């Protein structure tokens, strides 16, 4: 019986060691870096900011598509405010994205704390809009 206990413990140690190595490697993967020969030239800040811009745009696209597909139902249920909110985004969001584009170009021309902060703040404006659309979508699905 003692032999089997030792075997069991040994197996568990092996499995635990394997799991530990996998978790450690997975944590290493979270700190991804950019190949400096790529178009971002190793600028992880800009790469992450661009990711946030894409995410925000996809959220807005999703909301506007959903509103378009459900416009008649929203109207029938007296939820025209959702369509009005969508129209507001259709009108204003291109301007916001234009501001982000301007801030992004300024950052590319002169990388520093000032331009990076300006770019970051311009992205926060559009992220606030996406939060609003998520709230509207969830509210309308109630």
């Amino acid at each position, binding site marked *: 019986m003692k032999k089997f206990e030792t075997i069991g413990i040994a197996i568990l140690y092996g499995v635990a060691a394997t799991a530990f190595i996998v978790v450690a490697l997975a944590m*290493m993967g979270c700190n991804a870096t950019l190949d400096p020969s*790529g178009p971002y030239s190793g600028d992880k800040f800009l790469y992450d900011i661009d990711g946030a811009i894409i995410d925000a745009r996809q959220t807005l696209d999703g909301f506007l598509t959903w509103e378009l597909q459900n*416009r008649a139902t929203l109207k029938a249920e007296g939820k025209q405010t959702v369509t009005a909110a969508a129209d507001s985004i259709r009108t204003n969001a291109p301007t916001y994205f234009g501001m*982000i584009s301007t801030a992004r170009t300024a950052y590319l021309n002169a990388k520093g704390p000032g331009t990076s902060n300006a770019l970051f703040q311009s992205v926060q404006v559009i992220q606030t809009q996406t939060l609003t659309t998520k709230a509207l979508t969830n509210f309308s699905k109630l």
Partner: protein
Amino acid sequence: MSNVQTVAVDANKFLAFVQAILPVLEASIPAVAAAGGPIGLGVSAAAIALPLLIQLIQQIEAQGVILPADQQTRLDQVTKALTDFTGQEWKPSV
């Protein structure tokens, strides 16, 4: 007290399980027979997972450095996100 009893039952079940699968393990892991010891069995059992581990390491290494092609994809996506509002969903309702 009841907790202790539960643990004891579970341990016996586990040992019975190990006893049951040991012949299978010994038959399927040649290194066990050669090593002859229980530690060898544990190490050999862990070694079964090595191909999976190597595959995981390769995937994680690929994630560790973002390749130029992937960077270009993001750059193209952000350019489109900032400038292209021609989709039908962007047309005003009225």
